[in-house]
């Protein structure tokens, strides 16, 4: 995988910058304005606002997972469970303890992160495949705990959620909640981008390539592995908390093992180890899901023999096939595709290796 940059940087400072050209800065500013104005456009229905909220929350989780799995190489399939931890903790803190949402959300993030680091302690002993199995166990244990403590979590039936408030204003409607999600999304993306370009990100990258080599280079491998678990799972906790408060009822079936599978699929489809890759992968897979749910009833009208259950199953079939095809034909993901397209438009300024 190459680390491409078609913009030739003049100095180190420029090389490290997140936004390198004034064109990029301009595009980002226009994008932000569009994002903020989106709910105000008359043609944008609540359905679309809900879609953007779902996409943003998933992107937060996937960015965290990409730091943990794509960058640092510690596979985790418990991400949906850590999202559930964040969601339940923040709902319980706001509902039962009466804390405001703005306190519950950081609590959820820290708690999910700590729990993640606790399961990540096994990374001291095992790695690769076996670490993955530990996280699989973590998923089942957390799921069981949530379902079997009905006094706290409402068990199988779920728990009611109260909307967040800020100085007396309740974010009841979807359109007002949208702004909270967007703000957290932007913060999450910039924190991730910044973490990746500091010494912490470089240490994670080294561990992801080969942890023994990283150790030989003087990196405290266990410290950084635990930190990666903390950060990745804290992202999941934030996303879970946001997810919970975007709904009026929280039930455990939102956080299935399948969901965690799709998160992993998103980072593969998008590209391992990059923030842009996580966003691309999430948008592609979730977008396909929206298209199938949108087109399903329409096709069902034409062919009444097909039932709704078949559509749900066939969309999963298509998802899994797409991820398999990506693994076979483009294991570096959409981001690699995008870099190749971008390279082909640029005159060759420097020798760049494309693998």
């Amino acid at each position, binding site marked *: 995988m190459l680390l491409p940059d078609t913009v030739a940087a003049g100095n180190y400072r420029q090389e490290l910058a997140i936004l390198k050209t004034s064109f990029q800065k301009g595009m980002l500013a226009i994008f932000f304005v569009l994002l903020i104005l989106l709910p105000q456009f008359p043609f944008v229905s609540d359905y679309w606002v809900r879609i953007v909220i779902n996409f943003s929350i998933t992107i937060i989780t996937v960015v965290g997972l990409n730091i943990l799995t794509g960058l640092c190489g510690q*596979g985790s399939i418990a991400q949906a469970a850590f999202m559930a931890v964040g969601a339940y903790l923040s709902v319980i803190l706001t509902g039962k303890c009466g804390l405001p949402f703005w306190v519950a959300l950081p609590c959820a993030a820290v708690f999910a992160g700590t729990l993640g680091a606790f399961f990540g302690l096994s990374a001291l002993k095992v790695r690769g495949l076996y670490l993955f199995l530990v996280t699989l166990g973590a998923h089942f244990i957390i799921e069981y705990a949530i379902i079997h403590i009905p006094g706290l979590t409402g068990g199988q039936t779920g728990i009611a959620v109260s909307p967040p408030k800020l100085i007396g204003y309740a974010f009841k409607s979807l359109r007002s909640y949208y702004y909270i999600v967007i703000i957290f999304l932007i913060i999450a993306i910039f924190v991730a981008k910044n973490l990746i370009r500091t010494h912490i990100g470089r240490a994670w990258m080294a561990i992801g390539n080969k942890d*023994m080599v990283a150790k030989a280079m003087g990196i405290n491998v266990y410290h950084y592995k635990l930190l990666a678990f903390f950060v990745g799972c804290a992202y999941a906790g934030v996303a879970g908390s946001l997810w919970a408060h975007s709904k009026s009822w929280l039930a455990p079936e939102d956080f299935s093992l399948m969901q965690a599978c799709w998160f992993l699929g998103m980072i593969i489809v998008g590209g391992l180890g990059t923030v842009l890759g996580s966003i691309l992968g999430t948008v592609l897979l979730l977008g396909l899901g929206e298209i199938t749910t949108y087109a399903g009833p329409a096709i069902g009208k034409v062919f009444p023999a097909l039932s709704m259950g078949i559509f*749900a199953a066939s969309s999963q079939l298509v998802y899994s096939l797409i991820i398999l095809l990506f693994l076979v034909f483009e294991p570096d993901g959409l981001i690699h595709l995008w870099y190749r397209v971008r390279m082909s438009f640029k005159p060759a300024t420097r020798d760049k290796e494309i693998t």
Partner: protein
Amino acid sequence: MIFLLQNLITGIMLGMVYATLALGFVVLHKSTGILNFAQGGLVAMGAYICWALIEQVGLNSWLSIILTLILCFVLGLILERFPIRLIAKRVGGHAFAMILATFMLLVFFTSLIVLIWGGVWQTYPRFFPSKPITFLTLVISQEQCWSAVICAGLLAIFVLLFRYTKLGLLMRGTANDLHIARSLGVRVNTIIAISWGISSAICGLGGILLGAITVVNLSLSEIGLAALPAAIVGGMNSIPGAILGGLIMGTTICIFDAYIGSGFGIIGSYVIMIAVLLIRPWGILGSEKTQRV
């Protein structure tokens, strides 16, 4: 006391089925280094294929069981050919991509089952007499008893196959070192394909037995995955380990379910798996492999 004994016996009989499924994991992991999560899907697939052959095609029960095993074997060969070999070629030893690929195959199979058969609960006609055996005050269901016997026979056949036949020798050689085996003239690709076939056929049989003990439904794929802790606890590269792990897991699941509460058994098995991974990552009977830098 009787209650404990009763659960122990049920657990051991269930453990034989888990041991067989764990053997499927071990056979594949030994020769290819892949942990095949799709086995859960194959278990459910085998159960449904057998049901379809009996009820929808109308074949004799025993004939359809044999046909199912052959179909599962072929399915394993196809799987090895289409995604797995190509992915292995592209990403090499990147374990993460391979895990995800087998996970996606699991999703693929479960959604395929929903697509073809609607994922509804089905039951087999009885293969075995339904009257339970009563011994003193213990009640033993004949279905469980017979499936334990079949699994024990199968395990014995596989142990002998690996120890005494030429195919077993080739498979052990491939498992030991792929490159040396290849340089000695072993058709490594064929051997790996056969391992995939064997492990899928084992899954199919496990699915039929589990379906006969309980009902044929989608949750068979989760039960099939529950053999994973068994394989880990016993040791991923040891066939006696798979048997031991299966028996341990079968009894713990039964006893936890009986004493702590239904549903805790599977969780307990994962807790034990994590504990074993932390203390002795290569399993009780497995051998530690030296790690190359």
